[in-house]
């Protein structure tokens, strides 16, 4: 493993990361940049806990190598500010353990960006790649729908 330098735009700020080119984006975010909000779940892109946005698209950061995101814009849960979706998640108390929530929030943020008024069915389909073990699904779906209504009203 030998380090190379990668330049990324993370949550609007230019950062450099020194790491092996195959290092998963997740570890660079969490351990080098201190952005712990993106969670490790499976390392295989099968659970969605580590979802972030790369140039606006949902990406599993656990199996996305650094070389593939060089020069790109990465958005993590910390970069959402205080979005209507996050406020809706709190309003709906849409979590039990909350470990999956960051990934769900990122996937739903991307959904709302491309479809500002999704149906319940569309929300569920969009979130099918995000696993939740505690059974907070319905609350999270309600939160996404609530956020879309708030954004529509604005």
């Amino acid at each position, binding site marked *: 493993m030998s380090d190379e330098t990668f330049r990324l735009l993370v949550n609007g700020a230019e950062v450099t990361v020194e790491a092996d080119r195959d290092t998963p984006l997740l570890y660079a975010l969490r*351990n080098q940049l201190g952005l*712990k*909000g993106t969670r490790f779940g499976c390392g295989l892109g099968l659970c969605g806990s580590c979802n972030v946005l790369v140039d606006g698209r949902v990406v599993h950061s656990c199996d996305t190598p650094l070389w593939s995101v060089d020069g790109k814009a990465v958005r993590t849960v*910390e970069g959402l500010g205080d979005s209507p979706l996050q406020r809706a998640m709190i309003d709906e*108390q849409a979590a039990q353990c909350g470990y999956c929530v960051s990934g769900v929030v990122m996937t739903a943020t991307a959904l709302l960006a491309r479809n500002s008024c999704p149906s319940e069915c569309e929300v569920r389909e969009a979130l099918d790649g995000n696993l939740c073990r505690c*059974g907070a699904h319905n609350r999270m*779906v309600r939160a996404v729908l609530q956020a879309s209504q708030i954004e529509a009203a604005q």
Partner: protein
Amino acid sequence: MIPRNLAANPRLSHWVSVRPDGTVDVRCGKVELGQGILTALAQIAADELDVAYDRIRMVPATTDSSPDEGLTAGSRSIEDSGAALRQVGAEVRAVFLAAAAKVLDSSELSVVDGLINDTVSYWDLLDDVDLDVEATGAVEPKPVAERKVMGTSPGRLDIPDKVYGRARFIHDLSLPGMLYGRAVRPPSRGATLVSLDTSKAAELDGVVEIVRDGDFLGVIADREETAVRAAGLLRCEWAERDSLPDVDAMPEFLMSRRTEDVTIVDESTSDDAVTTVAATYSRPYLSHASMAPSCGVARWDGDKLELWTHSQGLHPLRLDICRSLGVAIDQVTLHHVEGAGAYGHNGADDAAFDAVLLARAVNGRPVQVVWSRADELGWAPFGAAMAVHIEADLDAVGEVVAWRHDLYSNGHVSRPGFFAAPALLGSQLRTGTPPPVSMDPPFANGGGSERNSVPLYTFPGQRITKHRLLEMPLRTSSLRALGAYANVFAIESFVDELAFRAGVDPVRYRLRHLSDERARAVITAAADAAGWSRRGEGWGFAFARYSHHGAYCAVVAEVEAETSVRVKRLTLAVDAGAVVSPDGLRNQVEGGAIQSTSWTVKEQVRFDRSRVTSTDWESYPILRFSEVPEVEVVIVDRPDRPSLGAGETAQGPTAAAIANALHSALDVRVRDLPLTPAAIIAAL
């Protein structure tokens, strides 16, 4: 009266400190597992102390300064810790009032948010009170009608951090100088290490140590990605052997082994039987399948050990670590840090011990161990596979005159701290010792395999026998509801079969055989809320009172089924006594019902004769968003009754309600879980 957990930790200062800035630290021995317990306990403390809820700071448990309340398990935290904190709150309030009486020279005192008679506050009186005294039991907690925070649903204390992605989980700890460790497991149970070549891993830049201690293997590196890669580069040759039963013939396996047999109930029977009906039900091994792999962080400083863990029981874990390593208890400090949702004895304790073993190689530096997903699904303890055989003798008019229930299972507890043999995975590997065969808690405490094996129905002539296996092919331990899930699935399926046989509506049949008024009330509430009287095909009903002491729960399931089953809607009614937080209760019951749906229609630990093979989310699928049913929870509030644990109450009845709904839809009885398309087709 002094509640049990307070009697064990009688000093008030152990539980509560009032700070000069007007905040109140509350310590308890219970830990947050995603169930929202700290929020509920904060509500109880706020009520009794007469301070605003947002003044309360719940201090994470540590072996240094928190009361020892044993395990956070069995849906007992509200009953046990809640009762203790209620009494503590009342007594601390009384101590402050006594001090205020002197300062104000008055006996007419009232408190509003810590301010007494609008004049002097608790935090003004800190020099006048001594909380380092034992509880007396002489102060009565408030009557129900005077509680203000209880019965409301303040937002959970922990949810904002999780929604905004703040560092809160143990995985997010970042201690100065912290290194990253990974343990490397054998490919199968009982495998032994024949040879090890560490050269490739050692060549990697950033690898700090490679640890071998017996068959316990691990690596330590300066970066997480390096630790992951180094773990994959250890060249291990293992001698494996077949040790596992046939995954597709588990009931036969369970019912043919050497067992310890315990009679739970043995009533005399009548001679009126004219016919006997019987059926056997089963559930497979289930995985906890938490969203986060288990994690531990440890640091040795000479002979002193500091450990951060998401264990359900800090004190029992500490005991096992000390026993395993020959370390004195007072050398070891454990801190609880939240993990992802825990539904019982998962890999938390084992991951903690992995960190302890690895950190020994780098004395002075903290080591964080995170399990791989494959190890989480493959090596954490499983919920035990079970088989339940029920027989009922019927008289000439079809009434039950005898009821026999035989259950076959491994025990449901192999937690650390309860066995002489090494209970921690790392300890077993380093000493070449098999795990202790799991046991069950005493029936008086709810039991393990036999939990909920005694039906609440007024069937005469009950004989209930548990057959606990004396061998253990796969390590089993506590998973949400323990034996109650399979026992309730079996009993409630069988009761449904009896109702159909008798040609009686399943709800009416249940009511006819229940005298417990609270049971009857939740059954009626669930049936009414779901619209049972207007039901069509694909509707199923089930009921249980969890663990004979906990919350009552009735479930109506509506499914669509052809060759697979889709659960469309679940309506649950629950009586958990006096409700601390209605939304917290609803969240737990809703989540329990959805998780149970996942267990019931999808989940099964798979293995060949030597290896567990369901080690990722494709081979161990769980319910997805588009498969999750609509869930409605109706609370039957009993403000005048003690609060009852509700975190596990939905597991069993949900399973049976779905299976009964499947029967209603297709006229087939699937008695072996999960209700997969293959199982349904086989039963057609």
